[in-house]
């Protein structure tokens, strides 16, 4: 890409969600969302093969529809109430439309269909940005409007997302699509708890970012994209392979790893609010996600493909380092014991 264009696009990608997060006025929030959508569009299409272009068009159309719905909901709110403040959104129709629009933006079920295809059509780095950085702006809008949101709708979206995230990822051999369904399931957990405790939703979000970043960096480091390729890619990095199973189990939410912390606290909060059936269903539906995380770790770490007995590490023709993998992997494995500290930090 032209360096000037690349500079403007990268700057806008950074500034877009930051504008939305720091806004009090709906128009400024919408502007930030549009800037982030526009800025990532050429990054998705960077390789210019037909699958990437199709992913670009799908991403742009869904995000543009969601932005239009956000604008329409804020205009309905301004028409009836006379003010554009994000935190005072009292009109119920506006809240329903806004929730739907942000669900489309995030990729919650039943608006999740674009996410696996967009992530599969683009490079691993762009998939990482799409699942972590681009979720920042819509989730911040949800946190800002949480007192006026419709809890049953959010619980329905969250439950459906956990179901779809678990169920849809069961038959996937491609790693980026598996990470897409993992993202849908985690966002389902976040959406369920947002009206009861926005602090827990933010905690879930930050741990999700850590774990997803660690997993994507691992995928990029191993340069594999399919489960079948992962069976023989451990020879590239034997030591990191053992870390990968821990990251995957953290994503699945198994104790004593970090991923257990948000699930535990959310289940506790739901129980305190007497939402027993929803809490039970969420816990059971995460078992589906656990299955495909286990399958990846089975293929990557636990078993060896049929080959001769003594395996050698591959020749290293170029040094392939991802400096951020070390802190992200460490955080995504070891944060459970300091849960009270993290709760006070939020």
């Amino acid at each position, binding site marked *: *890409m*032209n360096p000037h*264009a690349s500079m403007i*696009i990268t700057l*806008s990608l950074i500034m877009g969600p930051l504008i939305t997060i720091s806004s009090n006025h709906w*128009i400024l929030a919408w502007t*930030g969302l549009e800037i982030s959508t526009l800025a990532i569009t050429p990054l998705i299409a960077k390789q210019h*093969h037909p699958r990437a272009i199709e992913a670009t068009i799908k991403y742009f159309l869904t995000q543009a529809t969601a932005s239009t719905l956000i604008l329409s909901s804020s205009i309905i709110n301004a028409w009836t109430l006379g003010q554009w403040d994000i935190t005072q959104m009292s009109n119920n129709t506006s809240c329903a439309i806004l929730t739907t629009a942000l669900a489309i933006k995030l990729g919650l079920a039943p608006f999740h269909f674009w996410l696996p295809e967009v992530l599969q059509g683009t490079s691993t780095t762009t998939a990482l940005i799409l699942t972590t950085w681009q979720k920042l702006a819509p989730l911040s809008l949800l946190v800002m409007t949480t007192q006026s949101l419709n809890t049953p709708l959010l619980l329905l979206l969250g439950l459906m997302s956990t179901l779809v995230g678990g169920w849809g990822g069961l038959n996937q051999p491609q790693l980026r699509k598996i990470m897409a369904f993992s993202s849908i399931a985690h966002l389902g957990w976040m959406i369920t708890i947002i009206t009861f405790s926005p602090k827990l939703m933010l905690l879930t979000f930050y741990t999700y970012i850590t774990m997803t970043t660690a997993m994507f960096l691992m995928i990029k480091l191993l340069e594999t994209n399919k489960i079948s390729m992962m069976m023989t890619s451990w020879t590239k990095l034997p030591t990191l392979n053992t870390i990968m199973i821990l990251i995957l189990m953290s994503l699945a939410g198994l104790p004593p790893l970090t991923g257990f912390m948000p699930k535990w606290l959310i289940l506790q909060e739901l129980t305190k609010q007497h939402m027993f059936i929803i809490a039970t269903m969420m816990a059971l539906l995460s078992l589906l996600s656990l299955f495909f995380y286990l399958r990846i770790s089975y293929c990557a770490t636990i078993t060896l493909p049929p080959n001769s007995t003594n395996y050698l590490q591959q020749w290293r023709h170029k040094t392939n380092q991802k400096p951020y993998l070390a802190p992200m992997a460490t955080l995504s494995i070891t944060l459970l014991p300091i849960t009270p500290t993290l709760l006070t930090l939020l």
Partner: protein
Amino acid sequence: MMYFMFLFGFCFVFWMVGVSCNPSPYYGVLSLILGAASGCGVLVSVGGSFVSLVLFLIYLGGMLVIFAYSAALVAEPYPIGWGSLWGVVYMVVYVLVIIGLVVIGHWLWGTEGFGHITVDAGGLCVVRLDFSGVSWFYYLGNVIFLIAGWGLLLTLFVVLELVRGLSRGVLRAI
């Protein structure tokens, strides 16, 4: 914004002078278009926003194009411009004599005085409520102005990057 109002009025008179003293229909047509656009601005300033829009669309877009192009079709191959002797003579005569007479006549025998009288204001170079909102964009709304400008620049680069390649102008798949 007051300068803007003054500019609309001044441009209207200026381009109408250009229409009347043109040595050739090409320049006459040009000044007619620009004068009609300035006239629409004057109409907006006295409160006739709808009338101004209708004038812009129907007059400029419809009649003017057809009439002016058919008039320009019968023009001469070597048109005389405003820089030539005759153009300057026409312009000086028109401004000094005709317009000077009109202004002096209005000053001496006019009853209303100079300036507009609109529904909610009056005076020389007034700016009405909806038009003056544009000026707030440059003062209190400077942050969103910058962000909106940045967004437009970003759109330009994004579109150029997406359609760069063999077949320019389409979102290429190869």
